[in-house]
Each structure stands twice: as C-alpha cells, then as structure tokens.
C-alpha cells in the first residue's frame, strides 16, 4: 500500500493521511493509491501539512507498517525515549520499528 506522511505546519508533529485529514496515529493511515500526488499537492497548498511525501507500507494485523525504518521511527518517536512517542505503548515495544 502507499501511505502519505508529513509534518503538521504549526507544531511540526508527524502526521499521516487518513483518507479525509491528517492523524497523529499511523494506525489511521489510509491507502492513497494512485491519488497520492494529487492529495499531497492539495494538502500542501492548503497548508494542512508540511513536507509531505508518499511511502510504501505493508498492511499488517496491527495496521500499516512503513517499509523503511526511518518512517517507522517517525511513526513511534525516538526509540530511546519511549515516553515521548505517540504510540509506544500501543506497539508492544520497539520490535515493530526494528
């Protein structure tokens, strides 16, 4: 699947395209399919997201899992500070990242 991610313009927080808007939780990420470029252009233009891009992901039982480790770290926060990430507790530790 192809999912979209970027940063919230005001806060800089990592966000994921959920089909209608931007969510802090990767579990909400929707498959953008062939519409990725169009959505990115529209959302950046409307300043609803910053520095957004499309990535490959695998749909697992836990939800979408980005193909690249960098985006998995973005999804959960710094692996060395699980107290600061968005979903550390929900992801049953950091095995999901590695």
């Amino acid at each position: 699947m192809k999912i979209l991610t970027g940063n919230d313009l005001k806060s800089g927080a990592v966000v994921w395209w959920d089909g209608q808007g931007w969510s802090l939780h990767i579990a909400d990420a929707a498959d953008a399919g062939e519409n990725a470029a169009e959505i990115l252009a529209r959302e950046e233009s409307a300043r609803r997201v910053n520095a957004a891009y499309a990535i490959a992901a695998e749909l697992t039982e836990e939800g979408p899992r980005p193909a690249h480790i960098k985006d998995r770290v973005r999804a959960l926060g710094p692996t060395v500070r699980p107290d600061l990430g968005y979903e550390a507790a929900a992801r049953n530790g950091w095995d999901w990242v590695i």
Partner: protein
Amino acid sequence: MYKYDQYDQAMVDARVEEFRDQCRRRLEGKLTEDQFKPLRLMNGLYLQLHAYMLRVAIPYGTLNGQQMHALADIADRYDKGYAHFTTRQNIQYNWIKLEEAGDLLADLAKVEMHAIQTSGNCIRNISSDHFAGAAADERVDPRPYAELLRQWSSFHPEFSYLPRKFKICVIASEKDRAAMRLHDIGINIVRNDAGELGAAFYVGGGMGRTPMIAPLIRDFVPLDQLVTYSEACLRVYNRHGRRDNKYKARIKILVHEMGAEEYTRQVEQEFAHLLEQGIEPPLAELERIKPYFAEPDFATGLPDRADRSDPDFALWIDRNCVPHKAAGYVSAVISLKPVGGIPGDATSAQMRLMADLAEEYSFDECRVMHTQNIVLPHVEIGRLHELWTKLDAAELGAPNLDQIGDIIACPGLDYCSLANARSIPVAQKISERFAASGKGEALGELKLKISGCINACGHHHAGHVGILGVDKKGVENYQLLLGGSEAEDVSLAKITGRGFDEAGIIAAVETVADVYLDQRQDGERFLDTYRRIGMDSFKEALYG
C-alpha cells in the same frame, strides 16, 4: 564573559522580530515552504524526523548561570523538559512548534543568546578550547580572538551565501582539545621567537564524507591582521569553491584539488590586496573585548589537595578534574554520559543544577565541550567534594572523562532526518556492556565516537574507535574504524572491514578492546598500541 553592547542587542532583537514576522507569513500561507526554508535555517530552525528542531548558538561554548537557567526554562516551556548538547558546543531542542519559535527566540535574546549561524552556508558558530582561560598549558585565553571573529563573521554580507557551511575554531595551546585541525579554518594563537602573539592558520580540514586534516598555510599572522587574513582565506574559497555539487563544496575539497600551495599563494595575494583596503578593525576593538575575558579574582593560599578518603570521589577527581593555571583550582568536568544514558542529553532539572553550581563554584561560568559534557572551569580544590556530592546525587557524577563510557554520539536515526542508522542505542549498549563487565576500568583513555551517517556529526573519523551507521538495504549496519584522533596528534581513523549489525558492533568493540588489553605495553593508551601494532591484529581478531 562577553556582554552584548547596544549594537549586539539591537541586531539580535531586530532579527527576532524579523523571524517572528516570517513565521507569521508562513503560517498565513504568504510564504511557501520553499521560500521559508532558507529563512528558518538562517535562524537555526530545522525540520527533523519528529518535529522542528532549534539549534542555539553557544559562542565558543561559554555560558553563565543565567543563560543556562534560561536554556532550562526554554526546555520546559517550549520543548519536553530536556535538551541535547552537541558536538559543536551548541544546544538543540527537538520538539519545537513553529508557532512558538518567535517567542522562544525572544526569550533567548533576553539572555544575550540566539540561533543565528547555526545552520546554512555561512560562517557557523565559532568553537574553542573548553578549558580556555583556565588551562595550565595555554599561552593566552583564545576567546577574545574567537569573539572578534564572531563579530566579524556575524551577518557578514559577503559570507552569508558561501558554497557550503564554514566552521572556524580558535585555540591557544599545543594541546588541541577542540579538534582544531578538523575545521575549515583552525587557528592556533602562538608566540614567535620574539615572544609576540600571532595566529597560525590551518585551512581545509573537516570530517563528513571526505575527511581531511587541515594543512598549515601560515605559521604566524600578526594579531592586528587576524581578521584580514581570515577574510582572505574566505574570499579565495568564496571565489573558487564549487557550487555545482554540495558534496564537493567544502573548502577542504578546494584546498585538496587546488593544492595547499596554490591555495596559499592566492590567499597571500588576496591578503596583500586587503591590507591596502584597511579592513582590519582597530586593535582598540580587541582591547575592548579582552576585559570581558579577564581572569576571575582567584583566591590565593588555597589547599592544593583534596581529602581522597572516599574512593568514588578520588576516582572522579582523577578522571574528571584537570589542572588549572591558578594554584588551588581545577577545571571540573560534569559528565553527561551516565552508564546507559543518552550522550549529551540533560533534563531541565539537571541544567538548572549545573547553572546553580556554576554560580556557586565556578565564578558563574560553565562551558560546553564538543564531547558533549559540561565544564565548570574554575573550581577550588577544597570545595570539590561538596560539588561532587551534589553532582552525584543528580546522576551527573560519572567518572568517565575520555574513558570508553564517555562516548560522543550524534542524535542519529532516533531524531535526525539525515541519519541512516541509530547512534544512541549503540552508545548506550556499549556503555552498559563495559560497565557490567568491569572491563572499562582497565582500558584507560579510549575515545569512542559514533555517527549515524556519513556527515560525521559524531566525529567517528576522529575516534580512537569510531562507528559509522549506514543503511544496508533498509537495515541498520555499522562500520568500525580504528586509529583516529582529534587532538594534537591528529589522525583519521581507518575502516576495519565489513560492517556489523547492532549486536555485532557491540561485540566487535569488545573484541577490539580485548586485543588492546592483550597487546598493550606499559603506559600505552589504546591509540598508542594501535599505532604501534597496526590494524592487522585487530582485523584478525574481528574477522579471522
């Protein structure tokens, strides 16, 4: 330490308001990200993996207690209660909101600080010896010269759009504690045969993807020509430095490709021309700056030994305190590397404690080391035990300066958008492994430096043992390097061979340590043994 005059303060205040307005226009959609990005970078604001990151300049690493308190307050008010001291004597905040950036910079300006020249292709914040003004071996305090160059380089219109970033370091000792020859320009304040002070210029060093040791291009520049010669070095670079390829754009590439001899010839030619222009600030300006760095009012008749009956305290003295030029004093290093900790990170509470301790024990002064520790430069030996007791209670008393636990590590893939692999977990696990086995105690001086990508913010080329994280088909992989040094015996580390996974690199470091322990001769540091026996014994142990 240096205090802003009305011009400094007016310039910084004006920049804050200018950037506040730029942020507002970005949030209102009047600036695109492409338009805004170079503006935010000129104010130290990056967009990293998880959020905006702000890098704050700490000129030559010097802070007073009020400034450290302000940095702690900023960590609480605008970030998540902590900050990260960097390998260029600066500080970074990892979770900054764009809508609050203007207020943050205004708070910084209230304590004479800013984030200018911590990013972009300009002359960056100038670094120096973290023991400046205290070291027993220095010729003179290098910071007035660093400050003069800071003022010259701040907002210098000719050097605001260089081919690439440009880093200058100023020291004044034979001992190099600031990686001077691994800078674009390294300046050592020296004396000539007549006893006069001048500047030796080393140009074209650096780390990154193409590490180079800067060659000496002039052994003595009179101090009343310091700015002029610096300008000549920059002009030749600005004229010929490559702008077509960012990976070939640093001055080290120019000096290497042009040849140090030809580069020097052109600098001398430009220098002669500039001398006729009279661009050097009057010596009176340097004389105006110097009193800000005057020696504190050191007491006399102080005890020169501490009570060493507490073995933990005695170990901390031996490891973390270094000789001072004033009798009865030492410079005390506060380690930000507890076993298993994140190198360079400090909580706001720890920062406030360090600020209080600087005020109480060190004439209201502290320093940031490029090795991501903090120095209290002027501490009475007789008060060391009470200082250490307070540090130890706050997990700031690790006795590990220049030991294997004193690891430099960049933020790596945990925070940095450029990184290929995580640095911090590797540092944590090595630190824990050697602490648990007790082997670290036997190793003595061993400088371990870890970078999460080839940009080398973790100085891996300069590590006695270096680790470079790379991306191997989407999986973290770590190359091992041996034999580097950032000190006066400067050298670049060499790669041992094929890389390792995370568990493998930690085991590999232990293997390397075992070879050293087995082969060392009396008094040899790790680096000495490596230089004597070469790479082969280590490769044999690592790869068979």
